[in-house]
């Protein structure tokens, strides 16, 4: 499998002397893969998504798309089409003065240099594939429902023939009945078009449904990653466990993110960690359990993990 998108030690600071919104995050997205990024509000998921999408230049580290550095890709370089994004706010993501048809047709006219009639024809076919009626295609975002707007956003992204679709909380602003439809569209696109999908969400059930791999972010850092089923089935990192326990009906008590980076402790979760011990001070990049693609950045993973590690050591 070839790597489509890859980040190494990405750091993002909105102000030069300010805290890091993303601190040393690394990820790799292969062709056809579905990767979920989870974490609570303020954990840096959306900022990381913007870095992956190439709309935000990182303060440090490197982002590569098909082996080329994002920073070196010019605005009109065709490789820009490779990565497209679906936004959280379906209305804000569309030009309020353009109809659904015009929004999608504009992409075909721009990239394929098609005539207006050809572009409209292709746009209508794509919108119909997304389940939009002829009548809805002529309407502007203000006259469409949230679900319809999200479908137009997906069609616009698909008009670029991308290899990776980054979906930043695509269902959080939608009605529950529409959420499943949009998620099914994403899953269907992966199967029919072989698209890689990066799904950013705070909803663990959504991530479990769409993606086979997941990253857990806390205070801008990736604290655990691995296959979604394993990661959510038996979390290693204490934060992943707390995140799962915070699902309504669970027993957890999730407090908001406090930026602990820069307080001198090598673990970003130290201030809230129930398993904090003196030797956590020696936490390094390489520290923590690893098993195949699964990694947790923790000196004292959950008990079942410690036992497994000890068993393996023996």
């Amino acid at each position, binding site marked *: 499998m070839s790597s489509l998108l890859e980040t190494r030690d990405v750091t993002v600071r909105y102000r030069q002397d300010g805290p890091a919104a993303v601190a040393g995050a690394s990820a790799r997205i292969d062709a056809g893969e579905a990767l979920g990024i989870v974490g609570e509000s303020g954990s840096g998921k959306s900022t990381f998504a913007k870095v992956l999408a190439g709309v935000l230049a990182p303060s440090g580290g490197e982002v590569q798309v098909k082996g080329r550095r994002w920073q070196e890709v010019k605005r009109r370089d065709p490789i820009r089409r490779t990565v497209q994004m679906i936004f959280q706010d379906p209305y*804000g993501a569309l030009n309020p003065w353009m109809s659904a048809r015009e929004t999608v047709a504009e*992409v075909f006219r721009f990239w394929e240099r098609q005539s207006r009639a050809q572009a409209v024809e292709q746009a209508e076919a794509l919108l119909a594939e997304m389940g939009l009626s002829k009548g809805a295609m002529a309407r502007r975002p203000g006259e469409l429902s949230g679900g319809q707007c999200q479908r137009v956003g997906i069609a616009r992204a698909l008009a670029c023939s991308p290899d990776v679709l980054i979906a930043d909380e695509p269902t959080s602003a939608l009605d529950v009945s529409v959420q499943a439809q949009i998620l099914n569209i994403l899953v269907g696109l992966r199967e029919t078009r072989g698209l890689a999908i990066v799904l950013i969400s705070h909803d663990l059930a959504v991530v479990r449904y769409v993606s086979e791999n997941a990253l857990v972010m806390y205070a801008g850092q990736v604290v655990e990653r691995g296959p979604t089923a394993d990661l959510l089935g038996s979390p290693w990192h204490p934060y992943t466990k707390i995140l799962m326990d915070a699902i309504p009906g669970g027993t957890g008590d999730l407090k908001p993110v406090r930026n602990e980076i820069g307080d001198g402790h090598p673990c970003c979760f130290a201030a809230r960690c129930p398993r904090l011990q003196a030797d956590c001070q020696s936490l390094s990049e390489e520290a923590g359990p690893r098993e195949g693609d699964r990694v947790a950045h923790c000196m004292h993973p959950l008990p079942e993990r410690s036992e497994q590690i000890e068993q393996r050591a023996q």
Partner: protein
Amino acid sequence: MKLGLRSRGSRGRKRSIALWCGVGLFVAVVLLSILVPIFSAYGPNQLVAKPFQAPSASHLFGTDALGRDLFVRVWAGGRLDLAIAFIVVGISFLVGTLIGIATGASHRRWLDSLVMRFIDALIAFPFLVLILALIVVVGRDRSAWVLPAGAPAIIIAILLIDWSIYGRLARGETLSLRSRDFVTAGQMIGYPQRRIVSRHLLPGVMRITAAYAVADVILVIVATASLSFLGAGVQAPTAEWGSIMYEGRTVLANAWWVSVIPGVVLAFTGLAVGLIADALLNVER
């Protein structure tokens, strides 16, 4: 639910009625200003009757101190005031919107800061004082093309200040729009900056500046009339609403119509423009 829909519909109908009243009134003022001086039996500066004749069937608005027909003078004055307003507002709208959107969309921070500080400085000065100073610099006796003496100075002076309001509005709206997701989506698709500005930012910015332009028409008319009233605007004997009111100020007790009638016409024009602008802004919301 029904109540909500009915009340929203009723609000919409009221807005629509207000808009059409405004449009009707404004069109009437524009048509009278164009047609009366053309089809009238006498010119605006022609002495046609005895001085200070009260409004009557033969002279609908009465006559002034020299015996000139005020009906013709008021509408001839309206033509000049409207012409000045359309020229000033049209140019200010175009120049201000383009400068505002260019600075707002520019990634060069220094350019944005430079233009905005200049605009801040312009707006910080008292409006009328600055215009009076500019009129002195341009020369209030200067005439140009079909414009009578005093009019070019007013146009240039108001233009030099007025574009800055449009510039500030356009820049603010551009900054607000460029942070929206649909602009980010355009950048991700690979649209060049020129296309994003012209197709994605300009329509939204122009809606705001165009709505202000409608309201600005009456502000410019009032400014023109005020300058003429102060003696710094259009020179006698050219008919202009402000100058006609100025001529009647000393005889207000005996010949009220000389000052009051052009004042009422100006007020009705303001009302018409206000109704249109209000309806347009409500559509925006």
